Structure formats: structure tokens, C-alpha cells
């Protein structure tokens, strides 16, 4: 049985906001199947109550002093924007007609 189906890949692509072509889905399904079968090895080793490690070092939240520091000017912040209007990022429609 394959580890992942083409339909699952299409679903994951939608979740990932990737408008993939049909041939990309076919190719990815085959490759991901092989990769997932290989990385499933972790399940053989990681059994029992071994605690997970998310990070190499023990992390604590770090705060800086509450002081105002120079930031980007509006022009700098908008310099790389695909579209700008009235000192704002201009974006495509984000809500439907009746929302």
C-alpha cells in the first residue's frame, strides 16, 4: 500500500497554498511516497515514553527593555511591496462579496 495518495497530495497542496499542476501532483505523489516510507523509520526507534526535543538548547523567552528604538520608515517598509496605495500594502480581495 502506498504511504500517500495523489488525492492526499492535492489536499496538502491546497493547505499549503500551492496551485500545483496535474503533472506536478503525479510526480510529487510518487516521490513523497518513497520519502515517507523511508522517514517512517523514526517510528521503529521512537517508542515508549521518550520525551520529545523540539530544540537543541533549553529555551526561555527573552525580553528586551521596553525602550523605543528606530524602526523602518514607511517608505522602507513598503519598498519591496508588489503594490502600494496611500502608504499601505495594496492586496487582492480577501473577503467574498457577501462577507
Amino acid at each position, binding site marked *: 500500500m502506498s504511504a*500517500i495518495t495523489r488525492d492526499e497530495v492535492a489536499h*496538502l497542496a491546497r*493547505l499549503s497554498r500551492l496551485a500545483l499542476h496535474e503533472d506536478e501532483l503525479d510526480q510529487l505523489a510518487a516521490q513523497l511516497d518513497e520519502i515517507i516510507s523511508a522517514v517512517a523509520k523514526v*517510528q521503529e*526507534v*521512537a517508542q515508549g515514553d521518550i*520525551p*520529545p526535543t523540539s530544540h537543541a538548547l533549553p529555551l526561555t523567552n*527573552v525580553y528586551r527593555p521596553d525602550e523605543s528604538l528606530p524602526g523602518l520608515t514607511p517608505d522602507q517598509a513598503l519598498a*519591496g511591496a508588489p503594490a502600494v496605495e496611500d502608504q499601505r500594502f495594496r492586496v487582492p480581495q480577501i473577503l467574498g462579496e457577501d462577507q
Partner: protein
Amino acid sequence: MSATDLLRLSAAELGEKVRAGETTSVEAAGAYLDRIAEVEGDIHAYLHLDRETALAQARAVDERIAAGEDPGPLAGVPVAHKDVFTTEDMPTTAASKILADWRPPYDATVTARLRRAGTVILGKTNMDEFAMGSSTENSAFGATRNPWNPDRIPGGSSGGSSAAVAAFEAPLATGTDTGGSIRQPAAVCGLVGAKPTYGGSSRYGLIAFASSLDTPGPIARNVLDAALLHEAFSGHDPRDSTSVDAPVPPVVEAARRADVAGLRVGVVRELGGEGYQPGVQQRFQESVELLESLGAKVVEVSCPSFDAALAAYYLIAPSECSSNLARFDAMRYGLRVGDDGGRSAEEVMSLTRAEGFGPEVKRRIILGTYALSSGYYDAYYGSAQQVRTLVKRDFDAAFENVDVLVSPTTPTTAFPIGERTGDPMSMYLADLCTIPSNLAGNAALSVPCGLAPEDGLPVGLQIMAPALADDRTYRVGAAVEAALAERRGGPLLSENAYAV
């Protein structure tokens, strides 16, 4: 000094001569820019080159020195900067179409510290897109070639950096190492490359791939030069919440000391044997014997969980990447495709990401999304995190009995361009020996240990040390380097086709 003489100097020597007034930063930058113009057509190490910007930096350094300032040992030394670090005065693309024309509004901490140290950024180097790959073939802007053999890969993801240094297009380069992306390209190009302890060098302004693993580090022609660059840009950064608030380990002192007498060295049993190229195994074995002859005490060490480290990495890194790359949404910066007034933001986002990301990046985003999705999370991402614990425990246990661990840096020498692009799993195997140190966050360095007899290509020796003991990797690396140079009658790098 002639231009060739300038190119032949180590970074340490060049810095000394600039400070002593025997040459200038402008002269050094000019020599390297001319060299780049000569060979870049063959190598394609750089994505962005701007002679005037580089020379302006060089003039500014000469003025600082003339005004009595001492920026440090690398003042006036040119550096090739990986195109994953933001630079205010040059584009930053991470070798992706989605950032093709992006000019960042700020400098990365590593960039700012390169400037503070008086180095001159010659240009930005090619890489695998978003640092995902082991060959630099995943660049959206064309592959880089290995100066030892232009039909071979220069390693990756920092392959532009390694090729630039090996072809004498720069004396030093920056890299980033998430699963081996500094050590592997250094190894296959006959260079020194170090992955500092995680958190030892700042990620601020480094375009994120896998945040719990990404580590900036140096690539150089010799161990001392790598140490000088390491020291110049490392150290605590309040802008990176994972930055370690501790002094930079004494890597320069260690590189100068270069002695291993009495040091306990562990050979990792799991990182060798089947699947390793015979010439790699042979050169590795010889370097172990060399270390013994220099007075090190060598023992074999077993780290059984390393067998599952590659699998864990290829779940953890894609998971983090799928989350990190969500920021490329076509709204605030970078590429935007299909915004015709009729399409929704979500449709524009999906079209842009499909157009802007290359195949490997898409593969990893999908894989990571899968590993993190409900129903699969425990089986994949959760299990991978448990393996990470086991890898850390294996290192901890090993370092109770030895000072450093050694292995080959890569299972094979540089493979032919195109050989593995159709087979992602075979490409991933290039990171087999380097990944454990990323998962555990400890220090590791690759130093050349000879040429494989069967193909004449460089082999790297990997030295791993506990977190914050980076200096040990430099100490051992420098000892191996010195002994090998004595045996060969000169540095290994001088034997490559693009050596000057």
C-alpha cells in the same frame, strides 16, 4: 604585490598586510574582482556582483584604518556572502524566483558584523533555493560548478560560497548549515567549513529554513582563516531570541595551538561502512591514524540512534520549513502573480507560490504539511522529535568518555551534476554524517583529509564537539591540516584546477 600574490595570501596574512600598510583593502578587493571576472563564467559561484559597491566598501575600510581605527584581524579582507543573509546594499534572493528582485531594508546581524570587522563583501553567492539541497542544483538561477572538476557539484546548500573560495574568487565565505550545508560543500571542495554551536551565531536577518537547526558559519581555505571569520561574526545577539548569551569559544587561539596530544577522540561506528565510497573510508582511516600518531587517544564509540537521524531530520526540517515559508504570501514583498483584479488574495497567493518556488521547496513544504497534519503528527513529527532526544543522549554519553567525535564529512566525494536531481532520497543521503550535530545543536567542523584515489576529489574529515566547545574542533582540525600539509608538501587546495 602582484595580484596573484595577493590571491595566494591566506585571509590572516592578507589582514596583517592591510593593517601593516603593505597593501590596501582597495588593492585586495580589486585583485579578487579581477579574478572573479576571469573565472566566474566557468564556475557561477555568485548571484550578485557589483564592483562599485565592493570597491566603495574597500575604500571606506582603508579610510577607517588611515583614521587610526583598528577594525580587527580581517580588516580589508574580501568575503563572499551567501545570498541567504539580508544585505541593505545588495539584493537578497535565497536563490528563489519568489525573491528575485528583493532588496532588503536591513542588514542581517552577520552582515552587520562583517562590516564592523572591516571585511569587504564582494557579492552574494549561489545556493540551493532557501538552503534546501546538497548540490546547489536547486538554485532558481542555475547550478554552480566544482573547481576541482566542473562536471561535479560543489556541494550545497552553500555551494556558491565553497566554489568561490576554492576557485580563489574570495579568500573567505559565509554559509549556513541546517543539515550539513556548510560542512558538506566545504568537504567536497577541499575547504574548511564550520557549523558553530546552535545559537552561537545569529539568525537575525538570515532567511529562515528550519529555525531550530539553521546556523551561520565560516568557509575558508584553512582552519585559522575559518576561525577568524567565525570569531568576527559570532557571539550574542539580542535580536535573536535563540542566541546564546556566552562568550565566543576561543576558536582562533585553538586554531593556532593545533595540538592533540592526550586528546580523546571517538570514531563513530555508525558513520562508516556500507554505502561509503572506498576512497573516502581510506582517507578517513588514515586521518584517524594520523591523529593517533600526533598523540591523540582513539577509541571506537557507538551512537546507535544516528541510524535514524536522517529520517528524523527529513521530518523536522520540512515541518519547520512548511511553517517558515508561509511568510511568502505575495502580499508584502517578493513576487506576486495573477493579480488581475478578479482573483482573491488566496488565489493570488497559491498561484504566486506555485510559480515562485522550485520543485524541492514545494516537495518539502508538502512533506512538512503532511508530517504536521492531524492524524499523522504523532507518528511522524512527534516520533522525529523523540529521535532527536535519542541523538542528543548518544552525543551526551559519548562526550562523557571522549573530547571529540570524528567521522567522514560525507559518504562520497562530489557527485556528477545531474546524477541525483531526479531521486530526492539519494540526494538526502549526502547529509548522512552531518545531520546528527544539527539535531543536537553541537559544534562540528570539516577539514580536508586528502583526495580519494579513485576520482582525485577532496575528502573531508568531520570533527564534532559538545555545544560551546567549538574550539576543540578547530584545535583538532588545525593539527590534521598541519600534519597533512607536511606530508603532502603543501596545501591540498593548491592541487585544484582553479588554484592560482
